[in-house]
C-alpha cells in the first residue's frame, strides 16, 4: 500500500515537472501553438507522431545547417541557394512550432536579400544556437514523457495546452 502511494506520488511529481517544463518552453518563446497542434494529432493510430515529426525536423535542420555553412564558405556566395535553404528551414521549424528557430530564419532571409555575407554568417550562428537549444529541450521533454509512461501515467494534453 505504501509502495503504491509512493509510486503515485512519484508519477504526480513527474507529470507536474512535464507541465512546468512545457509551460516554460512556451513562455520563453521556444515553442508556439503549432507544437500543441502536433499533440492533438497523436492518437492510438499514430502513438509516436510527435517524436516522429520532431525527429524529421532534427534530420532536416542538421542537413540544412551543414548546407548553409558550406554555401557561405564558397568564394562566390550564391545568395539564392542560401535563401532557398533558409526558406526550407523556416518552413520545417514553423511546422513543429519551433518559434525561435523560425524567427531567426526570418532575420537571416532579410540579410540574404541584402546580400550581406557578414550578417548572414552571424545569422547562421544564431540559427545554429537556437536549433541546438530547442533540440536539447525537446529531447529532455521526450525523456520526461518516457518516464511518465514507464511509471504507468499519461500526458494530460488539456492541462498543458491551457
Amino acid at each position: 500500500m505504501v509502495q503504491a502511494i509512493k509510486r503515485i506520488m512519484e508519477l504526480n511529481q513527474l507529470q507536474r515537472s512535464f507541465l512546468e517544463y512545457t509551460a516554460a518552453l512556451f513562455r520563453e518563446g521556444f515553442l508556439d501553438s503549432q507544437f500543441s497542434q502536433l499533440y492533438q494529432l497523436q492518437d492510438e493510430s499514430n502513438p509516436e507522431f510527435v517524436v516522429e515529426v520532431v525527429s524529421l525536423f532534427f534530420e532536416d535542420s542538421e542537413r540544412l545547417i551543414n548546407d548553409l555553412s558550406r554555401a557561405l564558405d564558397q568564394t562566390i556566395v550564391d545568395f539564392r541557394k542560401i535563401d532557398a535553404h533558409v526558406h526550407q528551414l523556416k518552413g520545417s521549424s514553423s511546422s513543429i512550432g519551433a518559434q525561435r528557430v523560425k524567427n531567426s530564419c526570418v532575420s537571416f532571409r532579410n540579410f540574404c536579400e541584402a546580400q550581406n555575407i557578414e550578417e548572414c554568417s552571424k545569422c547562421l550562428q544564431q540559427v545554429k544556437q537556437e536549433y541546438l537549444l530547442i533540440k536539447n529541450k525537446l529531447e529532455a521533454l521526450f525523456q520526461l514523457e518516457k518516464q511518465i509512461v514507464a511509471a504507468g501515467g499519461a500526458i494530460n494534453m488539456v492541462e498543458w495546452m491551457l
Partner: protein
Amino acid sequence: MTSNNILTLGQKFSVLIVDDDKIIRRIHKVLLNKFGFESHTVENGKEAVDLYLSGKHFDLILMDMEMPVMDGPKATRELRAMGVNNMIVGVTSRGLDSEKQAFTEAGLDYCVEKPLTSETITSLLQELAKK
C-alpha cells in the same frame, strides 16, 4: 452543417497533398485523415500532373507554392489547362501578397498559409460539400 455531419453522410473526400517538405506532407496527411479524407502525397507539381495524366482524380489538391522540378503555380496552370476543375488550394509559407496573388491567378480556388489548421480544413470541407 458541421464537418462531422458531412462525414457521417458517407461522403469521403479524396485529397492530393503536393509538397516537397516531408514534415508538412506527414502533418497534413495525419490531419486530413482525422477529418476522414483519403489522402495521397507527392513531392512536386510534375508528380501531381503525372497522376492526373494517368487517370487519377481527387476532390481536393493542396498545392505548395515552391517546389523543385515543377512549382505550384506552373502545376496549377497545367492542371487547369488539362480541364481539371476540382478544388485546388494553394498552401504557402511565403508572406508577400504579390506572390500569393500570382499563385491565386494561376488557377487556385483559395490560398492559405501552412501549416494547415483544423479550422481551415473545416472551412474547406464545407466548401467541398457545396460542390
